[in-house]
């Protein structure tokens, strides 16, 4: 609604590149972009499962394929993004979860620490299973 007496406000529209304006915004958008790399890694792992299901020959083929330089670079980048995702995720976990033990809130860093512990255990388990412990 506009009337003669309505003050003439000044509105600054947000730039499309607002996420470049502050470092913390950039870190935020990088965290969000990790979603693309997670999607890629899921595809990559599904291809692995398919290759394993199809027998030894195609498994070897998969291993050769994944050793291509371009793919290794892509996977290294993807790995860094997932790790970034994991770290930010575990650090923010205490914000959403407030756990009470004997009616006292458990301090946030303990919740984060237990998340990291679970991460270590899960990773160990994966390595043990894959490498044939």
């Amino acid at each position, binding site marked *: 609604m506009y009337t003669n007496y309505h003050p003439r406000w000044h509105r600054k529209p947000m730039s499309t590149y607002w996420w470049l304006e502050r470092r913390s915004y950039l870190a935020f958008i990088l965290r969000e972009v990790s979603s693309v790399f997670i999607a890629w890694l899921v595809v990559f792992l599904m291809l692995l499962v*398919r290759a394993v299901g199809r027998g030894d020959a195609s498994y070897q083929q998969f291993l050769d394929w994944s050793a291509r330089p371009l793919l290794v670079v892509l996977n290294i980048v993807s790995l860094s993004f997932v790790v970034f995702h994991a770290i930010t995720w575990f650090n923010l976990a205490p914000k959403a979860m407030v756990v009470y033990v004997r009616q006292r809130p458990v301090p946030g860093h303990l919740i984060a620490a237990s998340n990291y512990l679970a991460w270590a255990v899960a990773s160990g388990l994966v390595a043990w299973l894959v490498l044939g412990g």
Partner: protein
Amino acid sequence: MAKRTIEPLLWLLFSAGGVASAMLIPALALLFGVAFPLGWLSPPSHEHLLAVVLHPLTRLVLFFLFMLSMFHSAHRFRFTLYDGLQIKHLNEVVNLLCYGGAVVGSVLGAYLLWQIG
């Protein structure tokens, strides 16, 4: 009663996928994406890996990992498009692409894991 939106459920899938992918994908990506290709470690034999994958528990875990991670990724990517590129007016297209992709991916994943058995 407020009008039902699907948003809370999408957020739950996003969160569950955030946990699942953070817990399991780094180790898997490190092994298969980096360590084996670069020869840091020698890859396991096909026989061993097949045995691991054929175990029903592994398949169940992998299915949930794939499905939840894809929904996680879809949800986050959708908001990245909204906020980063300010294309919220393309709402329907973006939703279809993101969640549709996740649904198709999950079905594919389920099929893959089911047919190797």
